[in-house]
């Protein structure tokens, strides 16, 4: 069964139709890249998949392991195994990072009727992932994303991903705001999480991230639908020619 099956999806936000008949199938183990001009609807797609309030599916369907996502709240989708690394991770003053991580892990356990994680086990897990992702210990003592640099925010999101162990990882413009070193560290982090039973949906405007997280498939999103699909060479082609051709096609 496909991990994610999107069929003829139409979605709107604030009365404005953004996705206009989008179809996409992702199988376990695959890495898909979605590229497209600014404003094409890439982030909207990630919001619709993850269940952000205000994004309304008007037609078509989004199935995750056969389950209709429209029936699940955002937190339930996350517990089922969908993870979004945000384009702009949100700062949450006053909520301690470690508390937040532990709450998230326990939420997932509760969802599956499991016991809460033991405090020692949690610390061990966190420490091992922190080491893996080369994250500074003191970040975990701070409030969520507050005072983090752009690179730290992205890496912190990848840490959450490592700890929550999702099946579908959606990376929304993971390269935005990162210098090449920070990008490499974050991408390495993502690559360590790859496995045959997981899939990645990598949303990006530029090709450079795809040098590190190498896709099996590349799709062009323009005007609310996928207008072209191909292998990883399509990304290079887009880098060269830009999106003008598709912007015109969409309009």
């Amino acid at each position, binding site marked *: 069964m496909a991990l994610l099956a999107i069929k003829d999806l139409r979605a709107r936000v604030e009365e404005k139709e953004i996705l206009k008949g989008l179809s996409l199938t992702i199988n376990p183990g695959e890495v898909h890249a979605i590229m497209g001009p600014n404003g094409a609807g890439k982030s909207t797609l990630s919001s619709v998949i*993850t*269940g*952000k*309030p205000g994004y309304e599916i008007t037609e078509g369907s989004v199935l995750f392991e056969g389950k209709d996502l429209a029936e699940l*709240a*955002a*937190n339930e989708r*996350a*517990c089922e195994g969908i*993870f*979004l690394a*945000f384009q702009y*991770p*949100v700062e*949450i*003053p*006053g*909520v301690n990072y470690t*508390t*937040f991580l532990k*709450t*998230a892990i326990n*939420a*997932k356990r509760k*969802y599956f009727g499991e016991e809460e994680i033991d405090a020692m086990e949690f610390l061990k897990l966190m420490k091992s992932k922190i080491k893996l992702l080369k994250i500074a210990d003191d970040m975990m003592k701070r*409030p*969520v994303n507050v005072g983090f640099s752009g690179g730290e925010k992205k890496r912190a999101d990848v840490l*959450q991903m490592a700890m*929550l162990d999702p099946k579908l990882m959606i990376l929304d413009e993971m390269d935005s705001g990162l210098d090449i070193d920070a990008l490499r560290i974050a991408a390495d982090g993502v690559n360590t999480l790859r496995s045959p039973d997981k899939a990645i949906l990598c949303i990006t405007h530029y090709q450079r991230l795809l040098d590190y997280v190498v896709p099996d498939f590349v799709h062009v999103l323009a005007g609310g639908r996928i207008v072209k699909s191909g292998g990883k060479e399509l990304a290079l082609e887009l880098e060269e020619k830009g999106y003008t051709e598709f912007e015109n096609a969409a309009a």
Partner: protein
Amino acid sequence: MSTTEMPPFLDAALPVPVEETGWLADLRQAGLDIYKRKGLPTPKVEAWKYTNLGGLAKTEFKPAALDVTVAADKLPLAAALSLDALALVFVNGRFDPAVSDLGALPKGLRVESLSKVLQAEPALVEPLLGKLATREDLPLAALNTGLLTDGLFVRLAKGVTLDKALHVVSVASGGSSAAAFHPRNLIVLEEGAKATIVESHVGLPDFPTFENSVTEVTLGEGAELKHYRLLNGPDTSYHVGVTLADVAAKARYESFALAIGGALTRNEVRVVLSGEGAHGVVNGSYAVHGGQHVDNTVLVDHAVPRATSSQLFKGVLDGTGKAVFQGKVLVRRDAQETDAQQLHKALLLSRGAEVDTKPELEIYADDVKCSHGATVGEMDAEQLFYLMARGIDEETALALLVEAFVEDVVHEISDEVVREAFIRKVRDWQTGREKAVWSE
């Protein structure tokens, strides 16, 4: 104003005439005279525009019996702060030695019931009692003066630092009928003395109670008082309290109040910075739900040059809760180089909740640095989604965000032990809430 008729519930609370003469009798009479002239404040009085005590008149409050005691195992201590401290228990404003735990007092510290001091050593309190609180614009404080009987007396000698906090647990109990009481507290820190005093206001949910308390604080030069207050009475409790502090040169008065319980709470704080270099902090946070009403009214009076002050209040409102914040900074003509800040932030979780904010700067000096701000906002949808996108259910996510909002002010508490106790209180309160409370 003409002689106002006393509302029935307070009329009944008037004392049997005391066979006394001298300064105390005069003081009481002065208080009663003011109250008789001004009466119970109505919303027509500017300072009470948003808090209406009229509804109280429906309940017939009797003067709290003087002999009400609560057995140690019946004290609602779970509602109070849990603190390693010197503990004093007052029931309906009367000191209850049987359930208090003072141990051996450190040298230089006097902690007693005011009634005892009035009997044994009245000269000790005569120069201070009523000095700050006997005012035409504080009719309820004047009533308190008129009925003055008991409360807390603290005096810390010059240069002495208390290393353990003093914890005053004030228990309201109707006993066998609705009861009104008027505790009177006097706190004196001599030159350079340093102390932390914590108050937990709690109660038994038997009959309605009306507490009208007055606390007068005098800080000598360089003294430091950390004065923290938890207002966590049951739904049947009404609390009106005013704290007045006079802060001498280089002295520091830091206050914080957390209001989470009670039907109606008015926490009024007036700080006079009367010596150069004096510093006043008046902070607070609150959470109201259902039909609760919380009023924080603050006046910081910069009477001299080069004093500094700050006010920070944050609150969360749900259901049909109502909150009032009136914060005023007064900078007198001589008070050059004043630095004063004020900020109030309210978080509205339901459409039925209401918040009234009145920030005021009244400045007569020209070289000052003053700022004030007030915001009323809703829950941040981006933050909520971020948490939910990590699997956290909406209820838990809301609780985390509310806690963070409230705790932000709690973190300003400079006494670490007390800060932790307040944080625990916020968390307990949060986890103890019904699912339905954080509606919509």
